[in-house]
């Protein structure tokens, strides 16, 4: 237990309930999860099982309804908006399915963006980091381009560079290949694997079993709960039967 609490991410009995029009949706119901430094975790499960919800809570974009969440041994479930922003900025790197690059900013400026929210970082240091992370994703030659001038795969690589620029403790990726064709998807997966090899901690949501296999560990979610792989298969089969 003591060791678990030393993990980078330690969540216990985490729940999330959405209330809409008097309907309660239990998106997460009692999740236990540990992610250690340097680990590469893939989260999979059927649509609507709560993967994205879990990832947003991990990334401090959302707050849980119950349970505890220690990030770097620090409880984060009840922090203020400003405090959560600061932690997001320093500890978390997001990679979105739809890239979410800002069209009015150049590649360079997009990557620099998280660094500009870090007070007191000198411009030279920012430049070094931007150059480095663009170098790592192989996009150093496109600094002055605007996102609309890049292919989808290139855009996602820039988005990865942006997530890396702030040297976060963990990269959170929600279906990073969802908007890419298979060749570009594989290239991005290759990139994540390389980053992991260099020591990055990654937590990725994916549908694709091929990509899930690339991770150190797979976490299966069903109906807001972590289940074992066999369990998941059984439950899916049962569900299919029910539908027929």
């Amino acid at each position, binding site marked *: 237990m003591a060791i678990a609490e030393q993990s980078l991410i330690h969540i216990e009995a985490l729940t999330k309930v959405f209330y809409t029009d008097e309907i309660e949706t239990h998106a997460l119901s009692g999740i236990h999860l540990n992610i250690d430094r340097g680990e590469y975790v893939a989260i999979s499960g059927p649509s609507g099982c709560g993967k*994205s919800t879990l990832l*947003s809570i991990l*990334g401090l*974009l*959302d707050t849980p309804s119950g349970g505890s969440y220690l990030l770097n041994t620090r409880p984060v479930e009840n922090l203020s*908006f*400003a405090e959560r*922003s*600061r932690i*997001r*900025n*320093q500890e*978390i790197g*997001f990679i*979105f*399915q*739809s*890239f*979410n*690059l*800002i*069209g*009015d900013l150049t590649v360079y400026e997009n990557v620099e*963006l*998280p660094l500009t*929210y*870090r007070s007191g970082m000198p411009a030279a240091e920012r430049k070094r980091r931007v150059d480095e992370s663009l170098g790592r994703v192989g996009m150093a030659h496109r600094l002055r381009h605007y*996102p*609309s001038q890049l292919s*989808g795969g290139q*855009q996602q690589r820039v988005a990865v560079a*942006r997530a890396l620029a*702030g040297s976060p403790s963990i990269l959170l990726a929600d279906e990073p290949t969802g*908007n890419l064709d298979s060749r570009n998807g594989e290239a991005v997966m290759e990139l994540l694997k390389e980053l992991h090899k260099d020591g990055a901690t990654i937590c990725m949501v994916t549908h694709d079993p091929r990509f899930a296999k690339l991770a150190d560990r797979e976490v299966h979610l069903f109906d807001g709960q972590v289940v074992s792989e066999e369990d998941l298969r059984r439950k899916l089969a049962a569900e299919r039967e029910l539908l027929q």
Partner: protein
Amino acid sequence: MTNLLNDLRYALRQLRKSPGFALTAILILALGIGANAAMFTVLNAVLLRPLPYANVNRLIVPTMFDNHGERMYGAGYPDIAEWQKRAHTLSGIAYVTDESRFMEVAHSGESVSNVQSSANLFSVLGVQPQIGRTYSLEEQSPGHEHVVVLSDALWTKYFHRNPNVLGQTIKLDGDSYTVIGVMPKAFSYPFSGGQTRASAADSQVWAPLPLKPDVMTRAGFPSFYSLIARLKPGVSMNAAQADLNNLQHTIAKEYPAGYQYPVPTSVQTQSYRSQLTRQYQPSLLVLEAACLMLWLIACANVAGLLLVRASARQRQIAVRAALGAGRSRLVWQSLSEGLLISVVASGVGIGLAAVALRVFRHALLQRIDIVRDIHLNWPVVFALALFAVLTAVVCGILPALIVSRIPALQQGNTQISAGRRQKHLREGLIVFEIALSLTLLVACGLMLRTLYDLRHEPLGIRTDHIVTANFDIPSYEYRNANVVAQLYQPMLERTRHLPDVRAASLSTTVPLDDSFFVQLTMYGKKKSTDPRNASVNAELGATTADMQRVFGFRMLQGRFFNAQDTVTSQPVIVVNQAFAKAYWPDGRVLGQPFTNWRTGKKSPRAIVAGVMDDLPQRSLANKRGPQVLICVCQLEPEDTFYDVTASHHMQLAVRTRENPEVVIPEIRTLLGQLAPQLRGIKIETMDQVVEDSMGDQNLAAHLLELFGGTALIITLAGLYGSLLYAVSLRRREMAVRLAMGAQRGDILKIVLSRAAILLVIGLAAGTAISFATGRYLQSYLYRVHSGDPATLLVACLLFLTCGLLAAYLPARRAAMTEPIEILREE
């Protein structure tokens, strides 16, 4: 065609679907159009109104200038006669003089304007009498001049339009005249569209100007007449001016050697219409410019709104284009919405204009005395219809261009950006609005400062507890009498004994009164080479000793008039400081002999008894010029100045103990007892007179406040709306920034700094426009310069503050974004 109608119907449906947008756009355009409709009505009434003469544009007014370049107040008969013979650019030239006389018909009568003219006046103007005839050249020979032509209004009032008026006799100042004709309705000359001071505008009679021997030679002091001439067909005004100028050059050389008065040497011509409107033209054009700015702001604003709608419909439009809609069709569709809005807005605008005209009618008619009434009419409505179409085009053209450029359907985008071109267009419109609004605000600020300065101008007199009464003397009744002894002395005596009255004085002129003015020109006092010393133009006034007690002004040297100044004592004058400086530059003023008190060898000379402070004259903003005062109580009918001062117009000024309003009825009763004609005269407090003398500035300030305020509100609404829209387009970007760790303050800063940039660019442009256009406003201003930095600074700061407040709401909305909610919408 049916397609186009269909598109209009479609546009109507679109508008019904978004009533908020439609209402905003209509209201904003209605403000812009309404202001212009109102202003255009005024312009039309003043500058473009039809004048009651044939072919008005060929009527010109020549003005003479003497050898010092000083403008002369008319021309003498000998010169005019030469022109009539020798000018080949004119088909006719008439000369005129007019004065107020008392007309009696049977047992009633009134004060009328009696115009005396050359017989050809009516042919020059190209107007025939409606009955009877006008006078002939023979009737200008002395002894035959007692014939008269009546105005339609007088014919109606005294003869009930009975044609047997011809041959009847009326009296003017007691002399008998035979009526020989009646001019058509609406005819007047000199043109008087509004109410003049002395008499109702329509009360004019025309009689031949008798050519007495002394008028026809260059012997004595010349009698000056006003001129009106008609250009020959095909001759330009410049050609006429050159012709007359040459001619006058030659004529000037023919003047007898030793001629002791200024010789007219050059001529300038002006069209009669522009002479009538010249005085109002600059101020009206300034206000019209302000209205046009307001309209442009409104158009820019609505263009911005339409642009947003066009962007929102881009996809739908791309589909239409893909289905084969031609470019012109797409443009028309985009324009049709603007057209609908603009047509409805014009309707509302006319309503607003009617209201505005009603509110400002009184003030306008008071300031512009050549128009009698101002109301919306067909030419204005027609102009407005054109204006509505223009508005639609101006508003709709940008969105239409955007629409016509959609190349093809674009697939769903994966990055976050609003079309950059459209964003720049939208922001450009906002900057444009800010610039023009600032210009209006600065103009408004300058007017307010002017008003403030005028209100705080040291007058040099006290204005509290003073009542003034302004009246014309029924001079024919006192023709063979001494009006001073018979009317003025008793009036003063009895007024003084009213219980609430501290002091009472009579003056031909009081400060800030512009109803009566006698210009005194002192020619060639010294044999000086400096032309400025050759003549001094001064205002001549007659007053009584108590004027100083009533108005409480300072004497700089010597004394004011007192009770010892009578007809038997040494005649004295008091001059103001400006006169003393101009006429006796060496400073030795007191005791200086001035001018002969009477004609004839034995006449005593008046001497200077004192120098008084320069008092405000015709209006607060006017420069305080030289002034010479004589004492009413020293005047007798045979004195030189008696006729020009004491026998026309007087003002009774009274200092009261208590509230001056209380004394007004008592004075009215008293004056009525003294002379029945004085019963209905205007009596007001001096404070009111001071307020009225700021009328022009007041009106301009109020109008500019209205325009500036409206412009500010429209612009702020535009800024707010545009930022709100921009923020809604950038929701995703803001969410990503927040996810990357931006604080709420960072987001606030992004939006506010964008607003600040737009504001600063707009304000800079506005400052440039203000500087460039300021000189047109200068004639309105007093003391403050049109480029006044303090006013500009205050206006800019006000704008910046309001602008940032307007930007704060959208900025806050952006900052309060919950990133997860937006990021979830993948």
